[in-house]
């Protein structure tokens, strides 16, 4: 096949599939939460309520897209786009299956970290541009949260980089042929899981929106499709973090019998469900507790993990 056509197909699939899966996740999340909370969840529209997603999408497209007169208009419009773009950009480096990557960069992991860090601009700008006090507080919380969690998110991954000897994600997957990195890097996995939760602003870490305190926080003033973009952006983030956990700690596409892409999807789906379960189970910590957790516990642990891994790798080198 013509390599250009092939990469175009992959590109299309990589944009198209996550966007649709993200929409489907809204259904999955509502059904799973309902299951755990002893209720039905959406079950009216289509079989098992599957078309609920479509109905929601149609609704959100036809909603009035209102920009508050007091808002900083250009920034207000850009903010939701930023989150979509940065998350979708991160998808370019994810190795779905052998050879199925948009850009198999030699700095893939760094690119992912950079893009996910850029995503926070969206939240901060949205909170700022809304010119509403609740949004502003949400934006402030977001910046503080991201600052503290970004630091050890990167550090928690350096252990795997040391073990694989490469920042290229396909190399990291290949290096897990004999043993998934979750075993030697269990601490790193836990740290990354927590940082990933904070990165996606999912429930235990949804302080920037905190609907019971800040009335949806940074996206209080958003309506229509702009709100929808934040919403889908969040779910895209969930898929991304789950996919990255799979790639970095659970051997990516590797597994017996089944085709690689199936293994990848199964593993990713497992972590998505774990994210949803956490949302059902946990209350929301307070802003200052979250910060002190990040700086006083997680960061030292990440550094320790890196130190020990480095020592072991050095000692084991022939």
């Amino acid at each position: 096949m013509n390599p250009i056509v092939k990469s175009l197909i992959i590109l299309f699939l990589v944009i198209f599939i996550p966007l649709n899966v993200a929409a489907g996740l809204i259904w999955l999340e509502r059904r799973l939460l309902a299951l755990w909370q002893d209720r039905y969840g959406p079950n009216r529209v289509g079989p098992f309520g599957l078309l609920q997603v479509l109905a929601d999408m149609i609704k959100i497209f036809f909603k009035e897209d209102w920009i508050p007169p007091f808002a900083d208009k250009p920034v207000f419009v850009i903010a939701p786009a930023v989150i979509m773009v940065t998350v979708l950009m991160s998808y370019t480096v994810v190795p779905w299956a052998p050879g199925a990557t948009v850009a198999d960069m030699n700095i893939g992991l760094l690119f992912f970290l950079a893009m996910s860090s850029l995503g926070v601009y969206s939240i901060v700008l949205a909170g700022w541009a809304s010119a509403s006090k609740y949004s502003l507080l949400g934006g402030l919380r977001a910046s503080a949260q991201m600052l503290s969690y970004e630091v050890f998110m990167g550090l928690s991954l350096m252990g795997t980089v040391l073990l694989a000897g490469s920042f290229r994600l396909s190399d990291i997957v290949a290096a897990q042929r004999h043993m998934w990195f979750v075993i030697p890097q269990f601490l790193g996995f836990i740290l990354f899981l927590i940082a990933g939760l904070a990165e996606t602003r999912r429930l235990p870490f949804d302080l920037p929106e905190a609907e019971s305190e800040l009335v949806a926080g940074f996206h209080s003033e958003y309506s229509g499709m702009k709100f929808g973009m934040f919403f889908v952006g969040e779910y895209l983030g969930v898929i991304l973090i789950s996919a990255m956990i799979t790639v970095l700690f659970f051997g990516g596409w590797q597994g017996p019998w089944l085709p690689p892409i199936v293994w990848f999807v199964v593993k990713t789906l497992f972590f998505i469900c774990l994210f949803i379960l956490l949302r059902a189970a946990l209350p929301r910590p307070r802003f200052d507790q979250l910060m002190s957790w990040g700086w006083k516990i997680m960061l030292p642990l990440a550094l320790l993990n890196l130190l020990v891994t480095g020592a072991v790798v050095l000692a084991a080198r022939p």
Partner: protein
Amino acid sequence: MAEATFLDANELVLNMGPQHPATHGVLRVKLRLDGERVLGSECVIGYLHRGVEKIAENRTYAQFAPYTDRMDYVAAVTNGMGYCEAVEKLLGVELPPRAQWTRMILAELQRIASHLLWLGTHALDLGAMTPVFYTFREREEILNIFENYCGARLTTHAFRIGGLQYDLYDEFEADVRKFCDDLPGKIDEYEQLLTTNRIWMERTQGVGVLKPDDAIALGVTGPVLRGSGVQWDVRKAQPYEAYAQVAFDVPIGRHGDTYDRYLVRLQEMRQSVRIIRQCLERLEPGPILGKVGKIIKPPAGTEVYHSIEGPKGELGYFVVSDGTVNPYRVRIRPPSFLNLQALDKMIQGQLVADVVAIIGTIDIVLGEVDR
């Protein structure tokens, strides 16, 4: 009271409510903030004022009873009970035992229902979204019992001055017994989700501490007062109905923080189950209405203050008669209104996230605050 802001930054005045998911109705709290830290607050109430006390003066004694259901609309049974008892006291009517035991069963069920609603919404305010579905599931059972008893679920108007409006339905005892058997296990379930959850503990322990002296000075009653370690329960201190004949404990807290108030309310639910069980034992067939005339006319110049232990605290009715069919004056002492006074004291120096927790822990119902 006000301390300086960090780096002399401008104070941020945040208007929380009347439309806000965490103010449990139409409470408006004006917060003065330094970043997210609360420097001071001012409560604005009255958005739900309907002039219930004034309405009482233009209704007969019996006609006013349904209005009391609309004050604390999540605990209508106890509201109505307090009013009926006050008027009965005024008339000097003795209640038949069956009416007393039934009233106590329904009132304790209502206490559980109110606490369940509180627990669900309080947890939801702190970000735990699952308990609310569990507590509403159990609350539904109670509301079904109410519905079978009197046809209404929320504004029940379950009692009548002098006794009961209706006799109990046939399966009442079985329904209540089944509920009492199920509930303790369900409470264990909530505790599993919250009591030893680290995030829950960090969010509630040491938050909104109310010292016993302050609590007494502010006139706080109910679980909020008992959470501060003051052993005061109207059911024990000034027993009404037949509370003197049942055995139950009054749980109290030690630190007066949000976590203790949470524990106190959970314990109270278990104690209520204990009371209901004892009441069911004593429940025997008999008349349900005492000797009350068709027209209720207490003697002129008599007045009475009667208070009961509502789910949220001491609920008092002061009724004055001028010898006509309408009360001359009805003054209501709603527990939420007085408990809300403690809000400012409790949120000083806390964060915005704590304000939500503290409003939740006081367990206010605005229908009762504003009347």
